[in-house]
């Protein structure tokens, strides 16, 4: 997913490198958006390193249960004589304390950051794919008639229908009826959030499809899929990327809400959402179990939102001039 966005971005911008640099400079000027951008980059690095250190080379083991060590507050040094030495946390200290089973919260948070981000990115990847595909079809082949209605009417009415469902209620229904699995959650969140993207892409395609470069491409008998995906999508991608950035944030929040109701990602997979949802039971005895994941989600989602807004301003000259 990450790669896909990177590729699309690369496709969109290289021929006019000056333009990319210009936008980059603009983003730099918006200090909050720029800071969030680097915060997110650091977070991705942390998530990947965390994935390696919790799964491949086990340094932080989130799965060790130490029942004699439960509910230790953050920064408690490891002093237990009951727990075997090999179960001790790294550096001999519980950085963020332990939970109700004596698991190291720091290790779980690190493991959770990879899972939470994956949920966000895969869900957005699915909604991007569906949204670009359907929006592109509606925009490019909009005038083609299928029987008595045009492709455009067909697809846009379908979008209208999807918009009529109360989205969280629909997600909850489907996730609750399906067997609990992290993939179902990603797929369901993705399949219920593509409508906005489809509308954006369609609107962009409507203005692009009669422009000279598309007509030129058609005159050279370039296959239509190539015109759509190589020539037109990169030109329509900017608003889509912005809403994708904000979509990741929404997906992370949706996952945590699902976890709260007990239908989120199931253990043993840790996500910020289910650490928070489990921790709320012990709000008074072990407040760190609630506050650490809660504020992590707040900061990360905030960074995604600010970064998305920053990108929106950078990509939309109209917003820039009114600011």
């Amino acid at each position, binding site marked *: 997913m990450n790669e896909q966005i990177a590729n699309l971005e690369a496709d969109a911008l290289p021929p006019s490198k000056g333009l990319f640099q210009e936008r980059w400079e603009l983003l730099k000027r918006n200090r*909050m958006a720029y800071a969030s951008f680097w915060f997110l980059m650091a977070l991705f690095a942390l998530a990947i390193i965390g994935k390696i250190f919790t799964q491949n080379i086990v340094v932080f083991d989130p799965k060790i249960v130490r029942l004699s060590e439960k509910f230790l507050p953050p920064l408690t040094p490891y002093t237990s004589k009951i727990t075997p030495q090999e179960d001790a946390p790294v550096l001999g200290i519980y950085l963020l304390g332990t939970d109700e089973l004596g698991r190291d919260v720091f290790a779980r948070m690190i493991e959770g950051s990879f899972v939470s981000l994956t949920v966000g990115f895969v869900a957005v990847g699915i909604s991007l794919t569906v949204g670009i595909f359907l929006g592109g079809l509606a925009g490019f082949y909009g005038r083609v008639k299928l029987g008595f209605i045009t492709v455009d009417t067909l697809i846009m*009415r379908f979008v*209208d*229908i999807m*918009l*009529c*469902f*109360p*989205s*969280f*209620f*629909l997600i*909850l*229904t*489907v996730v*609750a*009826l*399906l*067997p609990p699995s992290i993939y179902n959650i990603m797929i369901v969140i993705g399949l219920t959030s593509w409508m906005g993207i489809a509308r954006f892409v369609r609107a962009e395609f409507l203005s692009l499809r009669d422009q000279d470069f598309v007509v030129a491409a058609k005159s050279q008998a370039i296959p239509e899929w190539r015109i759509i995906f190589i020539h037109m999508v990169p030109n329509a991608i900017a608003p889509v990327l912005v809403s994708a950035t904000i979509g990741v*944030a929404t997906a992370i*929040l949706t996952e*945590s*809400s699902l976890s*709260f*109701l007990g239908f989120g990602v199931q253990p043993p997979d840790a996500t910020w*959402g289910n650490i*928070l*949802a489990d921790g*709320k039971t012990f*709000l008074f005895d072990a407040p760190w179990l*609630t506050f650490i994941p*809660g504020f992590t*989600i*707040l*900061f990360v*989602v*905030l960074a*995604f*939102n*600010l970064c998305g*807004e920053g990108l929106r301003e950078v990509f939309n000259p109209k*917003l820039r001039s*009114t*600011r």
Partner: protein
Amino acid sequence: MINFIIRNIWQRLILLVFISIISHSVIHLAPGEPALVDPSNPRMKAEDIQRIRAAYHLDEPLHVQYVFWVRDLFTGELKSFKDNQPVLKKIWDRFLNSVPLFIVSMMMIWFLAFPIGIKAALSRNSAFDKASTFISYALISIPGFFLAYLLIIFIVKTFDVSVIGMRTFGLEEAPLLIRSMDRVWHLTLPAMISAIGGMAILSRYVRSQMLEVIHQDYMRTARAKGLPEDQVIYRHGLRNALLPFITMFGLTIPGLIGGSVIFETIFAWPGMGRLGFEAILARDFPVILTLTFFSAILVLVGTLISDILYGVADPRIKF
């Protein structure tokens, strides 16, 4: 005008039929059957399950089940799988509980978002503008139930009131004043928490709309002819900035169901969102379906109203 309304209602009815078909098939095609909710119950024998399935037409093909559902819905005989109560009555009872919550939170959203947004737009790049921008993003980004817990703890500790449920149990005999204060506290907190997200988003919209309007030529004209600043901003500016919010007002109506699941669960508020959640847990298909259908109707009515109001408010739009 009349033609426009009739055409719109007609189109929406067609949409509604498709919505009902899609939601019916989504729910029935997903695995997990009402008869399988309690598989470990030893008193559920195979023939019992058969009887239940036959009673609720679960053995019929999907389209026949759909016809049964529509028929029962419109004759008002649709029964819940869970307790055999009429679905429409269940939903109506819960709807009456949801409405005060919805109205109070809507009032909070609309009465607070506008002053904040206008003030932020008028004093652009001031400390107030920056703070309100940052705070609204923070409020959008915080998981709702986390914020709800923090607020509950804060309010309960500071004011020593109870806030869970619709009223405090055992206060039925208390004087009227105490009872109504109790109701007010029980209503305010859930309404406030459901309002926070909407308020943050709406105040951003108000700000950007005002910013757009403020630099228009007619504003300069109004100032040039010597109108007082208040009149320029509220009569000439705000009125024009208000137009898009007619659309938004229509779109908030469906929040009555979808947005309330989490908050009604936290506050044990017997509203529609919680009814839906309980129905999902019990695989109570008629209730889930009817709720989805009901909220789709709300969306369509909301957009219809905003389309009509838009035409009334903006003389540039002709039907």
